[in-house]
């Protein structure tokens, strides 16, 4: 038996490949059958096409589907003219049910702005008109002991039940999440939402449904919900859905399964004593009857982190030996076939049973500095539903030695809900620091590995963008802060009056032009503010002023910039014009700095005017090919960037904003490099 070449494996713990026996039961694999189907579809009984009879007939004939559920929008069934259609659907489904061959189900879709959910296993349909919020829908489902799915959990189109904030009462009902959804042009992949839900305490299984709105049931896409059960009956299919014996597959017949001993995907293993530190052997079956091979198979755990990985393989049975990092852990397998199809299994959970789930670990500071107060953050959910007392917490940090307690306290969590946890602490080490969070409740302690962080030995240099004067593109400088962080600079924003206090410790102040018009803050700088900035520049601060093209409505006024430049005796100013290219507003320019030439994107830029004998000039960059347009006409090759040294400080002017989140995300331009270069000069005087 050959081992796979180690070089093709990216991250492994211990992997042993067992003889790949493709179709009969290989050694160790649970004896179970694989079935494939679709659990989300519509007909003309709601907003789709055709009838249930046509749908069931089509999917049971073209093959590849062992089970199929319709899920019409519930509110259709509540119209007095349409109530009979619910019962008719059930009748029509009955005509196609053949135990052992084909399972026809009838469910419904509850549509709500929080997100849509399919319901199954209840005698009547729920609807957003009657169950008008999440709580009422859950009451309805509890009354009938139904089960439900989180549909198409794409955060761009819906809030995802408050971003999967934990709620035990709903967790008892929801047992599936559409890791893949829709049959449209392409199936949407929602694995990040799956990870988020699992991290935040939800126990849901993975499914992949087509959400058919046309008469393409079965043929719309290759995607299927895979399901394991001992037999193919309505009861066994509903049970497999409830107990999360499902997986999402983009390949219509790929088999996928994970197990730990006798426990299959969907199960929870409750350990005797701590789970963290224990080792588990996870069995993984990945095989495609069509012989498709796999480019990688990952075992994923908390935080979406890869716990074990297998490189290119022909498929088969694998065992991953993993060490648990948390007292509440989940593992699921993600398999990627060579043709790109993805398969995602339901998880197996391993926990102590104490019932608290900690997730979303982070430190809220851009940088951690030895001896400087920092803020650790986590979310904590109560899965017991009965957390009556406060929960104790302890935060431990480890550097080169063992774990040292840094902070402790307690927090309250509403029973069955969740809470933010913020822990102030002072890291007293430098270099790599590992954090551990221990939660204590009446059911016992639970420890969570809370991430690894870098602690600096001294304060980084700081820069700030003013957002306190209705400045252009306020709130869109997070990309700049990230870029600064990657360069070792700590970025932030100012949101009040500028003075000695707000300028203290800053190396760079960025002032985007204030916008005149609708505002909640002043749109002009006070004299004292400008004087404070000027004094600060002379003492060594760097100032960056960002302009804006004029559109003739008075919203862009350079009066304060002119005053400030006057105080600093910088003989340059912003012009009230608009940079244009071939008659339209210019959206990019090529600019040369000491460090190189850059093609940068921007919108609504203006030019700079230089006065004779401008002292301390370091850089003038023109934009050949563009014109600046004023009422007077067009001027060629306008100046777009100018930089000066004044006193101990530096002043730079740019005719627009080259580094808001919009520009930094644009591909095909050098805005990131340009910004990095400019930051390097402004912060450290180097090109």
């Amino acid at each position: 038996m050959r081992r796979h070449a180690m070089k093709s494996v990216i991250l492994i713990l211990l992997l042993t490949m067992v003889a790949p026996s493709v179709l009969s039961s290989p050694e160790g694999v649970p004896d179970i059958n694989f079935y494939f189907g679709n659990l989300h579809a519509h007909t003309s009984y709601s907003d789709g096409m055709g009838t249930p009879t046509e749908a069931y007939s089509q999917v049971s004939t073209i093959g590849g589907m062992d089970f199929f559920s319709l899920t019409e929008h519930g509110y259709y069934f509540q119209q007095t003219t349409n109530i009979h259609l619910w019962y008719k659907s059930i009748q029509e489904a009955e005509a196609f049910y053949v135990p052992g061959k084909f399972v026809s189900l009838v469910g419904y879709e509850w549509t709500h702005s929080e997100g849509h959910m399919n319901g199954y296993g209840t005698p009547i349909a729920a609807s957003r008109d009657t169950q008008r919020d999440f709580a009422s829908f859950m009451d309805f489902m509890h009354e009938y002991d139904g089960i439900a799915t989180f549909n198409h959990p794409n955060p761009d189109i819906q809030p995802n039940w408050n971003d999967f904030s934990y709620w035990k009462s709903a967790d008892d009902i929801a047992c599936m999440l559409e890791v893949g959804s829709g049959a449209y042009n392409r199936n949407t992949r929602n694995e990040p939402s799956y990870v988020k839900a699992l991290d935040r305490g939800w126990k849901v299984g993975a499914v992949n449904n087509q959400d058919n709105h046309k008469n393409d049931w079965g043929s719309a896409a290759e995607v299927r919900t895979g399901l394991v059960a001992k037999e193919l009956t309505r009861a066994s299919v509903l049970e497999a859905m409830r107990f999360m014996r499902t997986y999402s597959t983009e390949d219509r017949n790929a088999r996928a399964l994970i197990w730990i001993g006798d426990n299959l995907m969907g199960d929870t293993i409750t350990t005797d004593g701590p789970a963290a530190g224990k080792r588990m052997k996870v069995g993984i079956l990945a095989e495609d009857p069509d012989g498709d091979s796999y480019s990688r198979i990952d075992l994923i755990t908390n935080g979406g982190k890869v716990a074990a990985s297998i490189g290119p393989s022909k498929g088969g049975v694998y065992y991953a030996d993993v060490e648990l990092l948390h007292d509440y852990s989940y593992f699921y397998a993600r398999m990627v076939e060579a043709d790109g199809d993805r398969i995602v299994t339901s998880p197996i959970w391993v926990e102590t049973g104490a019932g608290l789930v900690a997730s979303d670990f982070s430190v809220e500071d851009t940088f951690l500095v030895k001896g400087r107060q920092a803020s650790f953050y986590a979310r904590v959910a109560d899965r017991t539903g009965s957390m009556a007392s406060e929960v104790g917490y302890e935060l431990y940090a480890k550097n080169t030695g063992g774990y040292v307690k840094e902070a402790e306290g307690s927090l309250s969590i509403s029973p069955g809900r969740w809470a933010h946890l913020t822990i102030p602490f002072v890291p007293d080490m430098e270099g790599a620091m590992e954090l551990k969070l221990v939660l204590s409740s009446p059911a016992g302690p639970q420890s969570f590995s809370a991430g690894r962080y870098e602690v600096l030995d001294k304060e980084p240099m700081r820069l700030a963008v003013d957002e306190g004067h209705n400045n252009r593109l306020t709130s869109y400088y997070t990309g700049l802060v990230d870029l600064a962080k990657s360069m070792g600079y700590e970025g932030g924003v100012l949101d009040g009056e500028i003075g000695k206090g707000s300028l203290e410790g800053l190396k760079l102040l960025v002032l985007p032009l204030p916008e005149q018009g609708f505002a909640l803050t002043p749109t002009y700088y006070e004299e004292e503010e400008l004087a404070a900035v000027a004094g600060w520049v002379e003492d060594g601060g760097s100032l960056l002023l960002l302009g804006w093209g004029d559109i003739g409505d008075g919203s862009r006024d350079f009066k304060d910039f002119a005053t400030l430049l006057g105080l600093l005796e910088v003989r340059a100013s912003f012009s009230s014009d608009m940079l244009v290219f071939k008659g339209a507003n210019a959206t990019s320019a090529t600019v040369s700095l000491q460090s190189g030439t850059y093609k940068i994107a921007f919108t609504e830029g203006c030019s700079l005017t230089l006065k004779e004998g401008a002292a301390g000039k370091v850089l003038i960059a023109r934009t050949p090919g563009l014109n600046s347009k004023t009422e007077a006409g067009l001027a060629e090759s306008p100046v777009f960037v100018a930089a000066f040294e004044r006193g101990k400080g530096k002043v730079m002017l740019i005719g627009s904003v080259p580094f808001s989140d919009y520009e930094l995300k644009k591909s095909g331009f050098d805005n990131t490099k340009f910004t990095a270069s400019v930051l390097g000069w402004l912060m450290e005087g180097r090109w």
Partner: protein
Amino acid sequence: MPAGESMRKRTFMLVALSLILALALGSASLAASKVTITFWHAMGAQLGATLEGLVKDFNETHPDIVVKAEYQGNYGALQQKLTGALVAQKPPTVSQVYGNWAAEFITSNALVPIENFVNGPNGMSKLEVDDIYEGLRKASMINGKWYTMPFNKSVYVLVYNKTALDEVGITTPPATWQELLTAANKLTKRNDKGEFIRSGIGLRDNIDLFACFYFASGGEWLDKDGKLAIGGATGQKALQFMVDMLNKYKVAAYMSGYWDADFGAGKTAMYMTSSPGLSYTESAVAGKFEWGVAPLPASDLKYRATPVAGTDLAIYSKSTKAEQDAAWTFVKWMVEPTQTAKWAIGTSYIPVRKSALYLGIMKEYFAKNPKAEQSLKQLNYIKYDPNLAAWNGIRGDISTAVQKAFLAKATVAEALAEAVTVGNKKLGF
């Protein structure tokens, strides 16, 4: 028995029998002269209940006509089913239609222009025609011909939590955008994690909310050449203001669905809705606090405007003449002052007849529900969608632009420019 008597008895029986027979036959032929028409609609829940009530009244007072009202789902589903039915040559006799659907249907002569009936033997007098709000009639014209009858029309209004406004010292609802921004800021409440406990205003990421801002700052959908005008300074400013409330000033939250439930739960202090949404607001608030309705704020008072939306009733030419006439009787009846008043009272749609406002039932209703009158204050400032077949698709393109801008996937200028390019293509440019 004497022979003569049994003869008389027999004759009497015979006569009685033939009379009964004649009556039976007679009523059978009376039944045969009843015309049955189908009416496809998209009015669900409370709106559906009110509609069914009116249909029942009509059927009871018009024994020679049977109207079968059939709910087809939401507007998207209704449109799909109508399109399919026309292809299959089995349309209903009458249905709700949006103007842009009608524009498509008339290319295959599927509709009988309503003006044919208005000007026909069972028509409407000039007084009656003038009694229908002019803006609504104009909105029902396609290529200068009056095709459909305004039916369930709504305007957008600002809903506000009066109790909350009082608490922060605001005594009148905002009438301008600066007032709206200031109010939304005062009304916003956050926890110490910076998350909203209550947003100042709730927005939706669709064309209808964009229209609330765009129209109320001087915007029109099309320029004089018939091309999309949304990409210019007015359109950019309107969309930028919405984006700024969300991302820059952080006084707003948005979703794709309806805000009534969250408003009632106190999660937002203001939102904009079309007038029939007010019945949902009422049940969501359920007396927990005082709330009010105001005209939409404008960027400047001189730009006051509101979008008018909703469907008309259209009669299909595939029906027989008898069915069409019966349908017209139904349509005419539905927009009579009493019926349009009852419809408005039951749904918060606006009555389509000016004279409806003077009916006793309407006056009583306003006395009890002063909020309801706010919608009507804007009837002189309505702006409406063009009746072009391509408009339905273009609505989607504009909504996409709003979504992209809200998600910061594109700048406002880029998002609108893309919608203009794609939309103008659909208009044939």
